[in-house]
């Protein structure tokens, strides 16, 4: 009978650790390649792998070997016209012909060792020294989410948690302990009885007494229960608090007439980057799109980026809506809240003050992080001024000015840079 094993369902990533070791070893080179890639390609398709090449000499594993030179005598198959003693011109280097078989083995002769980084790995390098600001918030540690973990055994619990092996082990021990005394006496009594019976007969009172004792010992031993309620052991589990891992991200964008297609595109890239970063940190992420001109509304992604609107700008309308959505749908003890706002800086003069108050009074206390980018080439306007006050007052508020798509990546790095001083 052959041993036939289906291994297909076993993990296929047996080499994952080796792969990770490889990446770890060439971290420097890979990181450089990643940075180059990020500069080179459009950020919208950042969400894919990348080809990385490393100079072959860096990844080589040297061993002693022979170089060409000296005398080599090689046997080859397929002789057509040669006779013994013929002389042949030396073939060109690397030619597959008359040279040694070994020479042409690595015929590809690539200078670089090229391989693909998976999307995950690529982003890992991309985000390597970024970290969510204020990630360790009291809110995070003081959550109500729990998970069950094993914690040894206990003497009570529900029947479904009985640990059979453990319980029977206990029972066995108890039986041995309790029967040891009577058992020893029983054996003694039996021997005495044998000795007595040789000298006297059944009617001897001593024999009778012994028989009775043996009987009572036997009943005592039988009386000891095989398993007793206090032998039972239950698997014990305790609840351990678990930080919740869901986040909601608000994308707030000005879609008034002054925001042209190019500005929207820049904003989109910014949102995508934030989103990507959140996917790294959280298991579950919801995205809420809020667009506004003079009025704000919650829309789906397509409308968010593509529907065209015109008109003036009242930023506070969007902030009010965000505030309302948070209170209604995303209680802060269950959700990590992030807001990313993009605008060209236009706003009704009197509205900017309202925005500042809304932010400081309502929104900022509820969110982990609030990022504002202003896509403009002009002078800062009143919204920027007011927001600067907010930034000075509140640590989780950040703002930057962006002029072209090329600025996004550095800004992003800046926004989420590891802030050791603040931590």
């Amino acid at each position: 009978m052959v041993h036939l094993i289906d291994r297909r369902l076993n993990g296929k990533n047996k080499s994952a650790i080796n792969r990770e070791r490889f990446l770890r070893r060439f971290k420097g080179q890979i990181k450089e390649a990643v940075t180059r890639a990020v500069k080179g390609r459009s950020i919208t398709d950042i969400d894919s792998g990348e080809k990385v090449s490393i100079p072959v000499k860096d990844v080589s594993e040297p061993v002693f070997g022979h170089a060409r030179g000296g005398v080599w005598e090689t046997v080859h198959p397929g002789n057509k016209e040669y006779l013994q003693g013929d002389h042949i011109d030396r073939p060109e280097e690397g030619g597959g012909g008359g040279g040694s078989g070994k020479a042409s083995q690595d015929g590809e002769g690539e200078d670089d060792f090229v391989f693909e980084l998976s999307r995950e790995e690529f982003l890992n390098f991309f985000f390597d020294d970024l970290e969510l600001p204020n990630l360790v918030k009291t809110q995070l540690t003081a959550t109500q989410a729990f998970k069950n973990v094993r914690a040894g055994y206990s003497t009570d619990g529900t029947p479904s948690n009985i640990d059979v092996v453990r319980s029977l082990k206990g029972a066995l021990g108890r039986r041995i302990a309790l029967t040891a005394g009577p058992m020893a006496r029983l054996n003694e009594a039996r021997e005495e009885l044998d000795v007595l019976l040789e000298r006297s007969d059944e009617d001897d009172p001593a024999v009778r007494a012994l028989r009775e004792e043996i009987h009572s010992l036997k009943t005592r031993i039988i009386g000891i229960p095989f398993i007793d309620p206090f032998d039972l052991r239950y698997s014990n589990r305790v609840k351990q608090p678990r930080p919740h891992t869901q986040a909601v991200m608000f994308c707030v964008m000005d879609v008034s007439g002054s925001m042209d297609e190019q500005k929207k595109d820049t904003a989109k890239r910014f949102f995508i980057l934030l989103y990507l970063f959140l996917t790294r940190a959280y298991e579950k992420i919801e995205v809420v799109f809020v667009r506004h001109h003079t009025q704000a509304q919650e829309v789906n992604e397509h409308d968010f980026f593509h529907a065209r609107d015109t008109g003036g700008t009242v930023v506070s309308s969007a902030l009010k809506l965000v505030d309302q959505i948070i209170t209604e749908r995303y209680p802060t003890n269950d959700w990590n809240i992030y807001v990313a706002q993009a605008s060209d800086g236009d706003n009704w003069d009197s509205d900017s003050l309202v925005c500042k108050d809304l932010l400081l009074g309502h929104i900022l206390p509820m969110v982990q992080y609030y990022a504002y980018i202003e896509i403009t080439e002009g002078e800062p306007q009143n919204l920027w001024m007011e927001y600067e006050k907010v930034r000075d007052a509140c640590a989780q508020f950040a703002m930057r000015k962006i002029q072209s798509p090329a600025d996004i990546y550095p800004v992003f790095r800046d926004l989420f840079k590891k802030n050791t001083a603040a931590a």
Partner: protein
Amino acid sequence: MTDTIASPSSAKRKRAKRPKGPLSTGSEWTFELIDKYHNEIRRVAEDFELDTYPNQLEIITAEQMMDAYASVGMPVMYHHWSYGKHFLQTEKGYKRGQMGLAYEIVINSNPCISYLMEENSITMQALVIAHAAFGHNSFFKGNYLFRAWTDASAIIDYLVFARHYIRQCEERYGVDAVEELLDSCHALMNYGVDRYKRPPKLSVEEERIRQSERESYLQSQVNDLWRTLPRRAEEAEKTEQRRFPPEPQENLLYFIEKYAPLLEPWQREVVRIVRKVAQYFYPQRQTQVMNEGWATFWHYTIMNRLYDEGLLSDGAIMEFLHSHTNVVYQPPVTSRYYSGINPYALGFAMYTDIKRICEHPTEEDRHWFPDLAGTAWRPALEFAMKNFKDESFIAQYLSPKLIRDFRLFAVKDDDQEAQLEVSAIHNEDGYRDIRRKLADQYNLGNREPNIQVWEVNVRGDRALTLRHVQNHRRPLANTVHEVLKHIARLWGFSVKLESCDPEGKVILTYECKLEKRHGG
């Protein structure tokens, strides 16, 4: 009389004619089918008296096959970045369609583990079972090198032990320290083998028990060697005996494990693990032609027998022959696909040829192989499989007919001559020459530079001197500088490599200097 002779063959014929039809007609495989095929193949193999370890067949996916490739084919292996590199290489090649994966991997263990890829058709699975699970398997069990050098029943356990130990070291001393050490050991892997001494058998329990003892013992040995307190009285007597080691040592890793002055006990253990793994693979490197040829011969013989018995359909045997001919194709030297002699082709041809010489010898064969011609082929083949390695196998069995069939010729490339010279061809004068040269070509000792430990400066700067004896004036490749760095890292002090001619005159010296460590 006629009856008794007729009865066995008629029994055979009866079995062959049993109205059984082919085992399968489609190309899909199922577990039942594989089991059925395996049983039939085993029956045929037993008919041919193939002696094998029990078989364990494992179905795996292409990705798992790549995983297996990456860790040198072993089901368990310690972790190292170079395996990750190999994985990436294989994956790249496979995804671009530059290379197919091997149909099978077989592990020299007891039970013998063969991997079958799920993509294979049932005919291919049968081919793989015949090739790996019976061909290679019986070779592992029979060949003297494998018997002497490897212990099939202990290897998996030992690798588990090794992986566990190395993981522990990583936890204790850091991934980087272990990685550096392994890098250096891998650079010397081919020099971690006793070529002439038979190694002791592996046993995991003993390994584990002895390992801690060994640590302290080894350390004490080392301490003794490097004792700095002078022993004057003895020393005066032994002035000329100071040379260490007394004789050159071929096993560099062993020497380092035992005598490197600065290695910690755990580092010595890691060196030992790499050495043991190298030793395990040593027979495989020496029996490529024989091993692959043997397996190919048997899959060919077994599959044909199954077909003769009517168990394989015509379609199946065509599919089989198609891949078989691919496997044993030898492109001529002028072809752009030529990359040396195909071990499958040569090995298969040689075993087939031995069988031919036994059964239908010509005059020439009787002259060249008087002991072989006309004897029973099966014992002759078994003997050839058991008692040789590639080098001696070719020296013994390569027949003039094969030399003609392959049209073998030898080319001499002397860098002091302007042109290459054809030194022998497949003619009466050349047979012996070609045979000897081809055998030499498979001699590991010629393929790898001959480098040995020459001397250690025990009383002075503790520098290690290695000696490379040039063979036919062949120089060392440039990697020598990098490898020396690795040796110096293991040795802890400067390392020198002298390249000398066969007379012992030093021609060239490479050196890797290490600053003396203070307060170590």
